[in-house]
């Protein structure tokens, strides 16, 4: 068994299951309500597969009006709701509960409007991240945030977790690329924050909703910024004999005034697995590999790569290899973006997501190695070096319950280390259930009390994704009866 405690299901809700399903069927077309046990099974977990709970039912609405009707009904019934995009959360953000209805947004995946002159795209949030870029690719535009799971993950999940990606060093994360949303509150009220213009008026509810892990409202539509692609982009691979040298090189590049679009880091175990999978030409005999990508015209790319190479020289890279073709560049990125999947073919793992001040990189990496060793486990490190977002993959055997328990304890130690180093528990994956109980290491009781009070404003009964983000102890007493308007 795992160490993270999930609240026991509400017996009253379980007893009313058929009534609740009947109520949902009155609101939606037959095929949009899933109650059969086999059909519910695919929704029992997300990418944190160690945890599974079969939901009470699954609903797949197609419109904002349907979402509103569902939430109004479930709010009145006091039934919990877990909103779900593609279920790719590594933090258990979409993990259901036996007494909760899963609200999947997968059917709401339309592009509603694209405006190249204003550089905006209005979409339904069930659209996958990559599909936004694909919809504007013929005009040489793209949607910037690019999480590794972008082929599958939805904008809905990206908004819920404020997802980042390899290229956010230059382009920012989801919250920096979102202009407006349409969302439904737990009581069914439809609200709009922002629009297709800059700076939403009043309090920044748009910023508050982004990264609130599906606990404040269910977003149904969004207007995002689309950007014109650079004329070209090219990565360079640099291998180093030590983490120290690679870390110092990153600091010097950034200190020099160059902000590459991406600076990715892999250690020896990660390089090996990714190279075997993608045949990207990664050097295998180095301790640390940097993938640094720059953008611009041919002349600009050459200029930046020259400058980076001359800065790197002081740190004695053992390998410097500039991509010579688009195919080679694609392979380099394929290796990096497939890292988690490739690692999964070799071993079960828990993917950590702490951020640290980049200056602490060598010390923290050394300490991570020691922590993992003390548990008798293995680790592969893959991360966004430019912004200090670490993804240590703790390798373990899922079939051995003791191993999972050790891996979780090891992960908790690593994340606590990130906080002690001046960083945070999660840079882009979210808290979910995975890091819920660690929140007390980063926040005081007062810090958490205000965040939870904000949840109470949007969702007084604590029905939206309630088992996540905040430790179970110390929560305010939820309102018992439905309270109508969130005011």
């Amino acid at each position: 068994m795992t160490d993270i405690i999930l609240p026991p299901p509400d017996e009253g809700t379980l007893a009313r299951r058929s009534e609740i399903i009947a109520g949902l069927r009155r609101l939606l077309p037959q095929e949009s309500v899933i109650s059969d046990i086999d059909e519910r099974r695919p929704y029992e977990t997300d990418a944190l597969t160690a945890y599974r709970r079969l939901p009470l039912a699954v609903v797949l609405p197609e419109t904002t009006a349907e979402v509103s009707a569902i939430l109004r009904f479930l709010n009145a019934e006091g039934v919990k709701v877990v909103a779900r995009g593609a279920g790719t959360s590594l933090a258990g953000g979409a993990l259901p509960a036996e007494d909760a209805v899963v609200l999947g947004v997968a059917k709401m995946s339309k592009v509603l409007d694209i405006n190249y002159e204003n550089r905006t795209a209005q979409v339904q949030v069930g659209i996958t991240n990559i599909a936004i870029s694909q919809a504007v690719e013929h005009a040489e535009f793209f949607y910037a945030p690019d999480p590794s799971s972008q082929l599958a993950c939805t904008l809905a999940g990206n908004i819920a977790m404020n997802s980042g990606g390899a290229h956010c060093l230059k382009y920012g994360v989801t919250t920096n690329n979102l202009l407006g949303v349409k969302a439904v509150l737990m009581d069914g009220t439809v609200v709009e924050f922002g629009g297709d213009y800059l700076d939403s008026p009043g309090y920044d509810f748009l910023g508050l909703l982004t990264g609130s892990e599906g606990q404040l409202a269910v977003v149904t539509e969004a207007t995002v910024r689309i950007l014109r692609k650079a004329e070209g982009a090219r990565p360079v691979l640099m291998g180093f004999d030590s983490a120290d040298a690679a870390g110092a090189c990153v600091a010097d590049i950034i200190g020099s005034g160059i902000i590459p679009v991406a600076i990715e880091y892999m250690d020896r175990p990660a390089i090996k697995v990714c190279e075997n999978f993608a045949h990207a030409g990664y050097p295998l005999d180095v301790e640390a590999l940097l993938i640094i990508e720059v953008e611009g015209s041919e002349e600009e790319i050459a200029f930046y790569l020259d400058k980076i190479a001359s800065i790197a020289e002081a740190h004695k890279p053992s390998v410097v290899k500039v991509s010579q073709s688009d195919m080679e560049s694609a392979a380099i990125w394929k290796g990096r973006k497939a890292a988690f999947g490739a690692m999964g073919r070799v071993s079960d793992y828990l993917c950590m997501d702490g951020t640290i001040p980049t200056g602490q990189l060598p010390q923290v990496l050394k300490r991570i190695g020691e922590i993992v060793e003390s548990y008798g486990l293995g680790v592969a490190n893959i991360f966004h070096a430019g912004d200090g977002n670490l993804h240590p993959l703790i390798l373990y055997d899922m079939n051995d319950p003791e191993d999972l328990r050790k891996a979780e304890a090891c992960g908790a130690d690593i994340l606590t280390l990130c906080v002690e180093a001046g960083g945070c528990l999660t840079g882009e994956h979210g808290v979910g259930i995975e890091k819920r109980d660690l929140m007390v290491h980063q926040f005081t009781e007062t810090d958490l009390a205000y965040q939870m009070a904000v949840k109470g404003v949007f969702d007084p009964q604590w029905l939206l994704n309630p088992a996540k983000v905040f430790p179970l102890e110390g929560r305010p007493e939820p309102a018992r009866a439905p309270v109508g308007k969130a005011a």
Partner: protein
Amino acid sequence: MVASYEPADEKETVEAVTEARSKGLPMEIAGGGTKRGLGRPIQAGAALSMAKLTGITLYEPAELVISAKAGTALADVEAALDEKGQQLAFEPMDYGAIYGAPAGRPSIGSVAACNLSGPRRIYAGAARDSLIGVRVVTGKGEAMKNGGRVMKNVTGYDLVKFSAGAFGTLGILTEVTFKVLPQAETTATLVFSGLDDESARTLMSEALSSPFEITGAAHLPGLLGDEARTLLRLEGFEASITYRIGELRRELRSYGAPEVLDTEASKAEWRAIRDVKPLAERVDGKALWRISTAPTRAPSLARAIRTKTDADLFYDWGGGLIWLTVPERSDAAEPVVRAAVAEAGGHATLVRASETIRAAIDVFEPLAEPVMALTRATKSVFDPDRILNPSRMYAGV
């Protein structure tokens, strides 16, 4: 005012709020005091000055991060960054010119509290996009933090952004942490002449949709008989700038041959646009509005206002930001402006008008009722007794 507070640290800020709260005294919070004319007038029983809460507390150039106590002058923060060739990328504007105050006085806390930005907003975001950590004293006299000093952080709710642009109505910012970026080595500006609003808007859209990374796009229609000027800014390394100027000249040749401004001239020009100098110089007797909308709808929005009242204006943000003066009279042409903005989509803020007018009409864009309900309810979480800048943004909030 019956009381004034000048806390020197977070603890004294907590004490000040606790005392004011127990006495039922609403407080007006001031950093440099340069933007007191922005927002609805406050009926305060106490003044809280951040003047003693100063100092840069952390600056790591290689990590692109700076922290400062909220009362630190923006000018001091910018000077420290300048020494290392860095900057606040969102280019915070200075309201000094608009309110007839000296430049360079705003505090770094107010930069966050008012979510300031400048022409680079279209490329690098506003203050909220660079703000990564805050320490706050709430209206309950409690100190709390959100965010931190690392630029990628999704731990818990984003109360950093929620604090930005709340004009001190949710809490008193005591310390702020910003992500910073390198200054450009070279800046250049292409200046096209004689375009009407619609052609200028198309030109700016085309330029911003090019791969050449425009970091400023503004259109100054002829004011006082000057010829209209449309400006595009490029920033980066010299070799890259030279290349991009060539490409843009070619792609935009149907709009005429642009003049090119060098780094010094460009900086002066964009500082003036940032601080609304073209209108601030003749703002007496006028009310000043700031309107955000989608660029394609901006010219017709401006036309709708101009058909109803005298107006001088210019466009920033590729057309998406309109700065506009109208005769102040009794209502700052509010019905005309609000109707035009409602029609086009967007939001308008009455940035400069007499206290009487600002007390009588909505200064900030009125919100739909469900959003207003959320606004009141979240205000109650952070400041249940409404003692922090009460009603500065919205009546009763």
